[in-house]
């Protein structure tokens, strides 16, 4: 009997099919999502960030300021109508730079998740399927080793060892990210694995491939999707922490953490140089968290 505490994966599954039921049921799914106003707020924030990041060159007031640009006449201007967040120590408009910084942050999140999630999920599936064999033990022990290092440290170590660029920062974060998915999927896969329909598939001679993907994976999807949505926020946080110490996008390309760190020197007089990028970070994390929570409510209605 399906345990009612398990997430309802049908919605998540239907997201993957083109002419899917998800879109047909959009009304009902939207209702579930929108029951909580905070989720809507999150969605709005996230949409705002994504859209402004994509269309940055066209919608920001001073797109050139996000590159090699200096205007020493205008340094240290407080927030005004022309410069919504003021200007920094090189006369660049902070608001525009923040929008461009979102680009890097989002790219990093997408790349990291795209690189980390599939292997992580795959390993978790395999370990869960072959549970209690040597395959399981080996995979999970390796995962434990990676999880045994405080995540930030590992990312920093790698990023520092290599040259400080966005690419390397992404690699570093990816390396530390995948174990969480392995653990998540492993937990679910190993319990699903013992459900009757999987054993039945096994007995009737379905190929391992089929079992892994169609039977087990599809039943683990919802929490994975939820986690991915929430993780975007966390990757942004880690990325900001890394760029705060100088690892990540190099100047003059703006990065949120780097802007906070640069501006910190000019406190308290020129407070806007630090505070606005800091607020931008908080806003981004907040938005993805709220949206992720709403997503969880929508996808995981296993508990009513």
């Amino acid at each position, binding site marked *: 009997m399906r345990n009612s505490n398990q997430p309802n994966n049908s919605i998540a599954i239907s997201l993957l099919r083109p002419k899917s039921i998800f879109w047909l049921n959009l009304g009902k799914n939207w209702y579930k999502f929108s029951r909580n106003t905070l989720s809507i707020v999150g969605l709005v924030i996230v949409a705002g960030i994504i859209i402004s990041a994509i269309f940055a060159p066209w919608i920001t007031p001073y797109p050139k300021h996000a590159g090699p640009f200096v205007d020493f006449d205008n340094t240290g201007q407080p927030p005004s109508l022309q410069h919504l967040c003021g200007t920094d120590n090189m006369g660049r408009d902070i608001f525009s730079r923040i929008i461009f910084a979102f680009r890097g942050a989002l790219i990093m999140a997408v790349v990291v998740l795209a690189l980390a999630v599939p292997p992580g999920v795959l390993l978790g599936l395999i370990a869960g399927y072959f549970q209690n064999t040597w395959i399981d033990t080996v995979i*999970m022990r390796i995962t*434990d080793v990676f999880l045994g*290092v*405080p995540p930030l440290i590992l990312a920093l170590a790698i990023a*520092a060892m290599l040259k400080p660029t966005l690419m390397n920062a992404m690699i570093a974060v990816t390396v530390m990210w995948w174990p969480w998915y392995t653990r998540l999927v492993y937990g679910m896969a190993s319990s699903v694995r013992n459900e009757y329909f999987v054993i039945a598939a096994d007995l009737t001679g379905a190929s391992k491939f089929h079992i892994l993907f169609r039977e087990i994976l599809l039943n683990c999807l919802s929490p994975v999707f939820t986690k991915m949505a929430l993780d975007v926020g966390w990757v942004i946080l880690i990325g900001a922490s890394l760029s705060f*110490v100088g690892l990540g996008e190099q100047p003059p390309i703006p990065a949120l953490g780097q802007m906070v760190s640069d501006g910190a020197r000019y406190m308290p007089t020129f407070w806007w140089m630090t505070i606005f990028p800091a607020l931008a970070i908080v806003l981004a994390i907040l938005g993805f968290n709220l949206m992720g929570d709403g997503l969880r409510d929508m996808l995981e209605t296993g508990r009513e």
Partner: protein
Amino acid sequence: MKLGSFLLKRLLLSIFVIFGLSIVIFIIARVVPGDPARMALGPRAPEEVVQRLRQEMYLDKPLPEQYFYWIRGVLSGDFGRSLVTKRAVSEDIKEFLPATMELAIFAGILMAIFAVLLGTLAARYKDTWVDSLIRTLSYFGVAIPAFVAAIIFMLLFGYYWPILPVLGRLSPGISHPTRITGLLTLDSLIQGNFVAFWDALKHLILPSVALSLGALFQEARITRSSMVDNMRKDFLSAERGYGIPERVIMFKYLLKPSLIPTVSMMGLDFASLFANAFLVETIFNWPGISRYGISAMMHKDLSVISAVIIVFGAIFVVVNIIVDIIVAFLDPRARLSTSRGI
């Protein structure tokens, strides 16, 4: 499974994990481009000197041999020499670790107390303004990274409202208590030096709050949801129905099962505090091991990097074991399985 054999198993596992960690670190450190000996001596040092240092550092030997020498050193407490401070790394660690430890412990205490307090309040007054307030605070608390909180505190308390100190561990002019544990609060208490104690305490407040903020609210939410889940469970109604008084129900029968997920999370968070402290340490000028390690990373000071990571790894492992013990104490079902995930 009895507690003893459970512990033993965890211990062995942890040692294995640390070894694995050391291998990973070692490989990463050696894979990095750049010549450590050259970097240590600078670009102008003559080649023979560099060559001699290379031999001293066993850099010309094959990798497994290098690993062996390194592990041997580590096990006897010798982590090599720091390129930056030019001292033995073990000296540096001895000096800086207690500072971070004090910070982490204080932050950990804050986390434990307030997470349980806020979570219980939110559960008890579910769906009232108390609950909504705590939930809103939680969303923000979780979204504010430690360094942002630190910067804001700097701004607020450093300049606008200087009621709490923002730099270092002690105010200038207060004499350091003699070093027993390295924890300023403890040392000064032991020696009866209340002035120093109070001062050290004040200095601890802001960095610990900044450090613990995100985790604290995350744990509060978990406590709340765990309590709410358990409040509607049948066993509570049954216990109530037998006439067991409400306070016993709340503080005994509800609390214990509800704390289980919280404690697990707290353990993980506490262990991470050590590593995540570096940003806070940098901003508040706190002489801790985290900051030391990060600056080593910037300077590619390999011996330090490896040593610091091993130390963090070991702390992580020890904390995890302690958490496992506590969880096993709270939840008997957990004793039958090793902690393999949530």
